[in-house]
């Protein structure tokens, strides 16, 4: 498991560096700490959400609700902080609990009903998106001083960039999730369920409990993603994060996790997120691409990347 996973991660890393190198050859300032720092900050919420998605996918499931959780969390924060005057820290705690509980509920439904995760979380996605509209239709600004502080907080890097608060949280969560996956029984049961759910159960894994935890974790990371997103924009918007689940899934899979479950890891996912980020950055900097050319280019780069990754993997057989 380790060896094969590492191999894929290496190839992914190599392709990422190549991509970055190509980008830097045209736009040298890309290699500044400022742009690289931005790359982390801009993609922090996606990164955090993709971590939860990775855990879910390794366990053989999928979670389509994350984009809606992000939006719902944001809207709830807006309502609580701006409209109700709740302290942001308390509001954070509330939304984390709600996000986690929602995930747990989905996990319980998946286990108890034996229904496919795809559909359960699709219903979850509709439900929370709808719930956003019930809370507010309009976007809500959040102007609490703590927000301004957190949004601009960070460790300065040489060269004018900074490692922002959001980027720090993302890295922290990646490390924590990595440890959780590789160094705890829960992690082993996640891989186990993805490898062969029935066998895992016969080997003493409590599938129900694990499933609830897995989706709870995804709900939790989605809620953190929601908090980071609301810090990022200092506002709440019911239409935020539409289609985000696909980005998270794409990042996870580009990072070497198999959709069929059982294999993969969060470090690869970080690379996947960065790859999507660099592709987007390149297209923005290029700037002359019409929007449709940009879409085609995104698809082409995605394909190029998957191809390179596969080619690299085929070679070591």
């Amino acid at each position: 498991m380790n060896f094969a996973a590492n191999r894929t991660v290496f190839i992914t890393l190599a392709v990422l560096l190549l991509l970055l190198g190509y980008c830097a050859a045209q736009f040298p300032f890309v290699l500044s700490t400022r742009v690289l720092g931005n790359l982390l900050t801009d993609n922090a919420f996606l990164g955090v959400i993709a971590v939860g998605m990775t855990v879910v996918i390794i366990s053989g499931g999928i979670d389509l609700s994350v984009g809606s959780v992000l939006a719902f969390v944001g809207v709830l924060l807006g309502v609580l902080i701006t409209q109700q005057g709740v302290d942001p820290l308390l509001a954070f705690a509330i939304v984390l609990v709600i996000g986690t509980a929602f995930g747990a509920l989905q996990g319980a439904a998946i286990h108890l009903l034996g229904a496919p995760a795809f559909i359960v979380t699709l219903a979850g996605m509709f439900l929370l998106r709808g719930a956003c509209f019930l809370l507010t239709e309009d976007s809500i600004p959040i102007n609490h001083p703590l927000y301004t502080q957190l949004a601009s907080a960070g460790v300065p890097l040489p060269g004018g960039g900074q490692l922002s608060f959001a980027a720090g949280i993302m890295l922290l969560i990646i490390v924590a999730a990595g440890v959780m996956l590789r160094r705890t029984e829960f992690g082993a049961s996640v891989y186990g369920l993805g490898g062969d759910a029935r066998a895992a159960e016969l080997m003493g894994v409590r599938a129900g409990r694990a499933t609830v935890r897995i989706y709870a974790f995804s709900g939790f990371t989605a809620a953190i993603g929601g908090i980071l997103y609301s810090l990022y924009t200092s506002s709440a918007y019911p239409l935020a994060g539409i289609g985000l689940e696909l980005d998270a899934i794409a990042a996870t899979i580009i990072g070497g996790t198999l959709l069929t479950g059982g294999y993969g890891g969060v470090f690869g996912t970080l690379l996947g997120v960065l790859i999507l980020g660099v592709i987007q950055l390149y297209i923005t900097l290029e700037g002359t691409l019409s929007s449709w050319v940009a879409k085609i280019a995104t698809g082409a780069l995605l394909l190029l990347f998957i191809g390179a990754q596969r080619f690299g993997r085929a070679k070591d057989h």
Partner: protein
Amino acid sequence: GKQGGGNGGMTVGFAQIGSESGWRTAETNAAKASAKEKGVDLRISDAQQRQENQIKAIRAFIAQGVDGILLAPVVATGWDQVLKEAQAAKIPVVLVDRLIETSDKNLYLSAVTSDQVLEGRTAGEWLTKTVGSRDCPVIELQGTVGSSPAIARKKGFDEALAKTANVKIVRSQSGDFTRSKAKEVMESAIKAVGGNKICAVYAHNDDMMIGAIQAMKEAGLRPGKDVLTVSIDGVPDIFKAMQDGEANATVELTPDMAGPALDMLAAYKKDGKAPPKWHQTPTKLYLPDTAAAEYQRRKDLY
């Protein structure tokens, strides 16, 4: 004509929302056209309707060191942080198409927008005036739930209707700004309300109205005659419909927002003088009488 030599070599980033509608593409095309005319190197980023992508794009523009940024904000709130970064980098930002909510209006140089509430109100006022005192049940086709034009255009229309008692919205549903969804919504509205009871249809954009017109025709109604229509945008197809007597009114939203914005940036770059905070594009109502000419005028822009 050309704006003198001052613009030569100016690089401007345009954080566009996306390419979700024909009007939006027209706006992008208009921006490209006027940039070419003014000799501006315009970098366009398509955010696919996502705020985070727009923020990323603005940051990339800042890193690139552009001379100015055009922002068509997908949502009103949440721009302070990135605008501060632009300010710190001394890059002026001009809002196009929509305004933002911010604590500090100095974060952007100026805004070129229409007044979307006014658009809705204009549509509503035309309708109340046209029906006079007879009872008029109206079907409203909203834009995407939660999007700012949908909210504003509903608000303006409601304001106009509030002044009369005889014109009432009996059904208001979202057609997602698209023809096909609007057609579906209209079909069920006709079934639920009864086709002959509908007096008028108000759509938050022309595309939805075109879908609704088809639904009405297929249900044996005569849009433009039995049922009044009013919508917003002024895309070529709605003028064609008016020409054919199937639509009654549209409120124009000009797609040429970038032109004035680029002029402001050029002027600002030249002498450093800040332009007025808001350049409002005209909101104009068009009726069938001018439809033929308007159609000819527009069909190439789109």
